[in-house]
């Protein structure tokens, strides 16, 4: 019974295939990796299956696939302009990966890939890395104008540059922590309230009555978590677009 109400257990990573420790680093095919590939397969097969008809008047599944496409495309166009469409596959992959990972995590007993900081941090580093690399390739040193706001008095400029650099460096941190913390906290809260139900029902008839309260909470939290699952994927995609816009158009 004790393991049933351990709120941390759901984040446990266990090895499916141990690959030993080459170079002193533990390597293994884990449940996390299995879910990652599951997500990729799910996304790919859904999109290709939904569009198999290539019909002029879309079926329900096809319009869902088209909606996800148009949703990401319109986000990019509204934040980074038409030029931003060259990053469309990247933003779409990020959005759909985070979205499906979050939703798959809502399935009972499923593992939430995005509840691990290393995963969200890697995705955030990918975004910021793309911004920096593309920014320098496209604009050269002019990209550094990103850190020099125009129209600022000379004596304030050093402080402004420092602040801009700090704000730029905090972007990947906030991007990764936001997603990680939301998924982690939401899943823990759900599990804790679900644990209350189990604990209270163990206390007889009064406990059964009292368990209604945490049950209501769990139901409400589940709805909230579905919202958060979508919202965090959306926020991740929108912020990615905004950061990529900086790479496309540095300077304020």
């Amino acid at each position, binding site marked *: 019974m004790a393991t049933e109400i351990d709120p941390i257990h759901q*984040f446990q990573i266990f090895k499916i295939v141990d690959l030993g420790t080459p170079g002193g680093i533990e*390597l293994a*095919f884990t449940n996390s990796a299995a879910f990652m590939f599951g*997500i990729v397969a799910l996304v*790919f097969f859904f999109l290709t299956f939904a569009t198999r008809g290539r019909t002029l008047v879309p079926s329900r599944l096809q319009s869902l696939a088209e909606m996800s496409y148009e949703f990401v495309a319109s986000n990019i166009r509204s934040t980074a302009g038409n030029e931003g469409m060259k990053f469309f596959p990247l933003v779409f992959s990020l959005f759909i990966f985070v979205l499906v990972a979050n939703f798959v995590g809502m399935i009972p007993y499923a593992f939430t890939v995005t509840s691990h900081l*290393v995963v969200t941090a890697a995705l955030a580093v990918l975004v910021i890395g793309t911004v920096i690399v593309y920014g320098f390739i496209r604009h050269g040193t002019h990209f550094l104008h990103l850190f020099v706001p125009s129209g600022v008095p000379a004596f304030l400029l050093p402080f402004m540059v420092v602040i801009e650099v700090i704000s730029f460096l905090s972007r990947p941190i906030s991007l990764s922590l936001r997603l990680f913390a939301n998924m982690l906290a939401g899943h823990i809260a759900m599990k804790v309230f679900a644990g209350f139900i189990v604990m209270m029902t163990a206390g007889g008839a009064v406990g059964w009555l009292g368990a209604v309260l945490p049950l209501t909470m769990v139901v409400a939290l589940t709805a909230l978590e579905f919202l958060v699952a979508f919202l965090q994927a959306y926020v991740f995609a929108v912020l990615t677009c905004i950061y990529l816009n900086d790479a496309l158009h540095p300077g304020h």
Partner: protein
Amino acid sequence: MSETLGPAIIVVASTETAQATPHAGGAAVADGVVIAVPPGEAHGSSFPPFDVTTFPSQLIWLVIAFAALYLLMSRIALPRIANILEERHDRIADDLEEAGKMRAESEAAAKAYEAALSSARGKAHGIATETRDKLSAEAEASRKALEAGLADKLSTAEAQIASTKTAAMANVRGIAVDAAGTIVSTLIGTAPASQAVEAAVDQAIEN
């Protein structure tokens, strides 16, 4: 970077649980919540997201999985959807264009019909006017011819009357001369000179 950051976080995160839960596993009470660590699954830390030993494998598989996703999306799935959307867009544009063309055609046809109708109407009017003019001209001509004929006949009749009249008058004189000569001869027994009789008759006629 993660090697220096990771353990520091683990210490903070695991202080309350590390004391309470021995690595052997089992259940222990910490802050009133039952926390259990399954034996063998805890890699030195009881909080999985901060367990540095799982980072390399997570990262490697994430890179592989995400690269696969990116390739599948950018090479296959997204062009496919873009193709469908573009096709629909083109089709709608084509249909609109065709509809516009057809509308223009129907408008042109309506205009042509109007023109034909008005020209036919004008032609009909012309024919009617022409016919009326012709008929009235014919009627006029026949009327004139009739009048001329009548006038002709009238004048011949008048001439005939006049000649008849003069002839009659001439006869009257002859008859009168004859009658006067006869009367005179009957009265006096001798035939008067014809010239004298004629002169007397002429004088009587003039009176």
